[in-house]
């Protein structure tokens, strides 16, 4: 058992449902007790969906416990088949049904005989995988099912398209800025003269999956979801795939070069360099912005990055490499992909934190006291409590992270958006100086308690007043240094003298 208040990644079935409800005309039936269909609320509220979420529950109640749920599940599948005429019904197990250990596959087989739609059982273990892993797995499962089906029916289209083309794999519902990213990727692929073959799963019909092998290559923008599918397609159809996320100016260029290598042939050499150069220097504003004098003030400022693997890793690289900001700690909650994450960021940050425990993240932030945080909604709240600004760069997110306006994180427009986000998260340059010179303008009371440590020290009134004069953005650090000094010297009450003594001790 684990004492938990908050989690970064949801349970497995959420991942499965996200993939299922992203496809067109696919219906998911959860084998779950009353109240577990909370996914519908999230999709309807966060994505502000106009359509009914194609997810229903086959309710597990007392009667089901006594009699088994076979009849009910089969009935519900057949009923949904008649009501909605979906192409595919995906039976989704939940934590409850995985303990019941009923033979769900058998129910699926029985229902498939009567139903006109295809029926499959999502193959995810609730206790072993999280939301993201389950989504990855489900996407692969659905793709595999339809390619094998097409193969059997002889409808598989293996002929490559005439022009270079790509599949974009891993855009789906409730993903962090996924819709905007997708539009941005389409845009630059179009600029490069590359056709989009299929985008899966968002908005894709399962009947189109048989066209997947027509593409020249697969692009997997996020590591968390889509990689398994890309690997499967590589193994079965020798389709190459690109996992370089086009996030930030440098990595967008890397991604485009990878595409160039795949579509360029000796007979028909293709050179994307002029495009990269034009976009980098003149179309996108991000490269110019990091060079402009305004951005000088960000030099060496300390930041902390935490989020899913993809966003945290690329954000770390952008901050360190493209903006000259010091990343004191980069971390991810994608523990299953820790190895890749460490490889990616180790050159760009002081330390690496791999955890899915939000209190560890909170303590790390309190200890380091960065000038800004780039994290999830949880870090935003930690930042609020510690008075540190935070830019949200990764799921889990709230409704405000599903903006109506165009806000990609990928591609050249994404680089602009990130530059804005970073710049606005730090205290503005001139304001920063003025604060330092005039001793700050915030009249908030000084909080002498931090998140992590239960302090046994007391500050006397004069000391507090003095602490209040210190500008907000360095106050935490001075406070911490003073307390450290006091503790080392067994001082229990902190006065102005102690503060100065501490300052001298550190400077010497």
């Amino acid at each position: 058992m684990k004492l938990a208040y908050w989690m970064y990644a949801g349970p497995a079935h959420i991942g499965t449902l996200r993939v299922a409800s992203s496809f067109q005309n696919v219906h998911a039936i959860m084998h779950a007790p009353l109240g577990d269909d909370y996914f519908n609320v999230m999709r309807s509220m966060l994505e502000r969906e106009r359509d009914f979420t194609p997810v229903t529950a086959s309710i597990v109640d007392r009667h089901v416990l006594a009699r088994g749920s076979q009849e009910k599940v089969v009935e519900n599948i057949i009923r949904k088949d008649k009501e909605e005429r979906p192409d595919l019904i995906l039976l989704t197990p939940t934590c409850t049904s995985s303990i019941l250990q009923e033979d769900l596959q058998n129910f699926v087989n029985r229902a498939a005989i009567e139903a006109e739609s295809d029926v499959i059982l999502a193959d995810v273990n609730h206790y072993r995988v999280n939301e993201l892993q389950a989504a990855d797995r489900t996407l692969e499962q659905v793709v595999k099912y339809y390619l094998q089906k097409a193969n059997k029916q002889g409808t598989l289209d293996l002929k490559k398209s005439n022009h270079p083309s790509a599949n974009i794999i891993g855009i789906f519902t409730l993903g962090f800025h996924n819709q905007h990213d997708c539009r941005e990727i389409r845009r630059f692929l179009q600029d490069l003269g590359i056709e989009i073959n299929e985008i899966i799963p968002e908005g894709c019909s399962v009947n189109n999956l048989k066209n997947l092998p027509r593409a020249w290559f697969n692009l997997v923008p996020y590591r968390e979801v889509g990689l398994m599918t890309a690997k499967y397609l590589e193994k079965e159809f020798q389709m190459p795939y690109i996992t370089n996320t086009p996030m930030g100016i440098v990595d967008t260029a890397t991604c485009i070069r990878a595409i160039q290598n795949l579509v360029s042939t000796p007979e028909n050499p293709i050179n994307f360099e002029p495009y990269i150069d034009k976009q980098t220097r003149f179309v996108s504003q991000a490269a110019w912005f990091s060079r402009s004098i305004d951005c000088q003030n960000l030099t060496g400022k300390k930041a902390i990055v935490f989020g899913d693997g993809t966003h945290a890793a690329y954000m770390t690289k952008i901050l360190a490499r493209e903006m000259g900001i010091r990343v004191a700690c980069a971390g991810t909650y994608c523990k299953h992909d820790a190895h890749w994450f460490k490889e990616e960021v180790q050159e760009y940050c002081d330390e690496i934190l791999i955890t899915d425990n939000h209190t560890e993240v909170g303590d790390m932030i309190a200890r380091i006291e960065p000038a800004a945080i780039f994290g999830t909604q949880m870090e935003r709240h930690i930042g609020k409590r510690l008075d540190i600004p935070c830019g949200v760069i990764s799921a889990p997110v709230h409704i405000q992270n599903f903006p109506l306006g165009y806000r990609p994180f990928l591609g050249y427009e994404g680089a602009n958006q990130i530059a804005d986000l970073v710049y606005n998260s730090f205290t503005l340059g001139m304001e920063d100086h003025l604060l330092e010179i005039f001793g700050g303008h915030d009249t908030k009371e000084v909080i002498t308690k931090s998140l992590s440590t239960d302090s046994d020290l007391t500050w006397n009134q004069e000391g507090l007043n003095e602490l209040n004069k210190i500008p907000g953005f360095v106050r935490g650090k001075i406070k911490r240094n003073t307390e450290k000094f006091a503790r080392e010297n067994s001082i229990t009450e902190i006065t102005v003298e102690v503060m100065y003594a501490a300052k001298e001790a550190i400077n010497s």
Partner: protein
Amino acid sequence: MLDKISDTLTFECETGNYHTFCPISCVAWLYQKIEDSFFLVVGTKTCGYFLQNALGVMIFAEPRYAMAELEEGDISAQLNDYQELKRLCIQIKKDRNPSVIVWIGTCTTEIIKMDLEGMAPKLETEIGIPIVVARANGLDYAFTQGEDTVLAAIVHRCPDYKVSQKKSFKKEKKDTSLFSFLQLNINKTKNTIQNSQTQSHPPLVLFGSLPSTVSSQLNLELTKQQIEVSGWLPTQRYADLPCLGEDVYVCGVNPFLSRTATTLMRRRKCKLISAPFPIGPDGTRAWIEKICNVFNIKPEGLKERENKVWNGLKEYLDLVRGKSVFFMGDNLLEISLARFLIRCGMIVYEIGIPYMDKRYQAAELNLLQKTCQAMNVPLPRIVEKPDNYNQIQRIRELKPDLAITGMAHANPLEARGISTKWSVEFTFAQIHGFSNARDILELVTRPLRRNQSLHELGWDNLVKLNYNK
């Protein structure tokens, strides 16, 4: 549909495929109500994810609840449940030092048959903190019924009421210092409104968790009728639970508390006053009248009070009169709300409700029937365990002016031109008593007012036709 006026209530029962909140959501309001409690939900990631998302910002405010998240080792019994719970509860004691820990049993603990009730007393003596077990799981209950399971469990922890206590209770008012060791009673006097003329009736305990302002409003209404409330279940602090016993009368303030009512009657021998619920001015008046009636007190000034409230609501009533409502059903407040809205002049097509206890809600159902007759409208159909899919077909057919529904359906219905109000808001808003009738109508009319202002734009239907299913 409207031409058939039947004069008996009919109950239908559908498939039970409907959307509602999991009953563990009750921790959200109960931990705030019982200030010295800690709620430990023994369940899986699924439960945790629900709480985290359903409670939104509350989660960041260092809540006094947490998940005991079951891992694979717990499910396969490789780990010892007792040892594991002990470890977590000791940690909770250390970090928060609560006066009571409430274990919320979930679907998983039911299925793996974890003996929470058996373990609690043992652990309670070992760590010295009371442990109350409530099985608020989705296998058996819906949404607000979670509170019912918790309160029913707490009933067993209330001290015994003895007739002699009444005397000491009175004396102690005169000389508190002498009886200062009676911690329990002193705290109780703080909770109740003191009135020199009261106590000509047996003790009355009200049950149901309400925000403290609302419960003091109800206390005050009763005091005006010379009725003193000797306690509430639950109380602000666990240590102040009211005394219960054979001579104590109890009355519910919420329609979903049937288990608590049963437990009070059967296990503590309390006498239940079956009344309509104090929701809406009509309900509040009927509720007070019924209590007065049981105590042989002639209610005074109630009619005037009710009329005054109705007069104050005039602007809202003009908005809702003649409009139709469809309750999809998810929180068991539906019957009382429908009754109030019918009295406001609305037409209710359907009352969906997760579970209908006809005995506990008898007085409320009776009032509903009378209200329909008085307003000369047909009795609505009451659908237990509704089927959301079928309901949406009916909503399409009936085109109600307002659908009261969960958040899963609200946006899709709005996109199809049906005004909706999220039912969850009624659970969290202050809707009890005379003074809060305005709040109910504020909620009910909000979509009507908003859509009135947007109506001229002509964008009522916002779905593409080929997607329109």
